[in-house]
């Protein structure tokens, strides 16, 4: 009879281990999801600032239409980005477009001096800092989650249980980034 009890004991331990491990994976996934939500809030905030900024610059430099279009397009692309990697990419495109917008604004001292413009510029810088802070946290949580589901024994059960690798919020390291296509530019 002894072996039966040993068997029961081992099985019980196994169940405890599995429950603990599963809960840990869920916890890690939730951490990463929260991390993503943090980035999303800041990206949203950044996107919300842009129409005001474009309006402010347009008031002084109405003829610089190319730059406005570029910024607006980049903003829409960021809003429609479906995955963290794509969002990071779109965010970088937006940063570049904003860089050109601010370069245009340099030429208008009145604009540079306007309270509204300065405030918007400050808010944008702040949002960018916050995005990079949120990125650090999110990427750290993704790293922990991915490591957890890629290590033995969780490697064997993670996929069937619906745990998939998460994407980092970074444009450079993203292999699956879509090829830039010039054919759509008419």
């Amino acid at each position: 009879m002894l072996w039966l009890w040993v068997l029961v004991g081992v099985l019980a331990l196994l169940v405890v281990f599995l429950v603990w491990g599963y809960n840990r994976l869920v916890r890690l996934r939730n951490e990463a999801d929260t991390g993503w939500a943090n980035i999303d809030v800041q990206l949203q905030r950044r996107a919300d600032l842009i129409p005001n900024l474009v309006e402010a610059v347009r008031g002084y430099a109405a003829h610089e239409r190319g730059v406005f279009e570029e910024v607006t397009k980049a903003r829409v692309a960021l809003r429609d980005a479906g995955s963290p990697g794509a969002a990071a990419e779109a965010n970088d495109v937006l940063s570049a477009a904003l860089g050109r917008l601010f370069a245009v604004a340099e030429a208008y001292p009145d604009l540079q001096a306007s309270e509204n413009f300065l405030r918007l510029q400050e808010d944008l810088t702040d949002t960018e800092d916050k995005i990079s802070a949120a990125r650090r946290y999110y990427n750290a949580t993704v790293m922990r989650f991915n490591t957890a589901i890629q290590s033995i024994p969780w490697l064997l059960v993670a996929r069937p249980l619906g745990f998939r690798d998460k994407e980092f919020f970074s444009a450079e390291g993203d292999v699956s980034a879509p090829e830039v296509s010039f054919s759509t530019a008419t």
Partner: protein
Amino acid sequence: MTLQEQIRANRLRSGIVVFGFVLLLVVLAGIVGYVLDVSLGIAALIFAVLYGLIAIVRSRSMIARLTHAEPLGPDELRPLRRLLENVSIGAGLPVTPELRVVDDAAPNAFAAGLRPERSYVGVTTGLLRTMPKRELEAVLAHEVAHVRNRDTYLMTMATVFAGVIAVIADIGFRSLAYGGRSRKAGVLVVVLAVIGFVLAPYAALLLRMSLSRRREYLADAGAAEILNDPEAMALALRRLELDSTSIRYADASTAHLWVESPTDRVESERPGVLAISGLFNTHPPLGARIEALEQAGGFRLPERLPADPPFAAEMGMPAGSASRAFGSIMGEP
């Protein structure tokens, strides 16, 4: 260890601390009841529980008063507030802790509050005038790591219980000294009781200090992780090491809260038990903390600190004597 696991480990530790202190408390009250009088023992216990509850409820404002940390208006020191927000986001805190400023020339900072949502971070004006942005951010990250790790909770509990035990031991000691003993208690028991009354507060203090020292290393590591920049934290610690201003409102009861121990000088001047060794220090020596960061991050600090302008200058905070400049920030004459 992931963040959540660390937090849970800390909660467990808090539980053990609370349990240990409750045990110590009951034993003390038992001694009082046995050696002196049963009703006195019960009264002491009730008093201790009430004292503890009030202290826990009032801890937030009490710490603010002891440290002279002033809340800021909505538009004051916005760049600093933003820095704190960014660090909190980097730490994954759901809410940014409130920012408070201590008008003091010594560079230092602390965190307090029982729950992350209700906690606050205090920085001295001296810190703002000493640290460039990168290092100031590291100090803020250190404090935010304390909040995130629930150290503030653990340490508040430990402080309150240490205080309660000191009070009970004092009651027992005094009653024994002035009131005499009752009934059956023999000489040996009384002697043991006296020893217990004398040692209990030190045991509580020792536990509190040892807890707080381990937390400092963890918070340093947490800050390095939050910013992804262990060197910034090490640089900040080195700058604190080189600074010799001591804080005006140094107080043994809040010493464990600060990023750098504010009471070293105070304690070394005190004769008796406290001066003996590092046993009762709330913080490990700064050199050891810098070394731990250097090892973890795989770098060596440069001989000279970077000569970047302090954040106060970058923010356009008025120069001059700490209190007068601060008064103008606070909108006071």
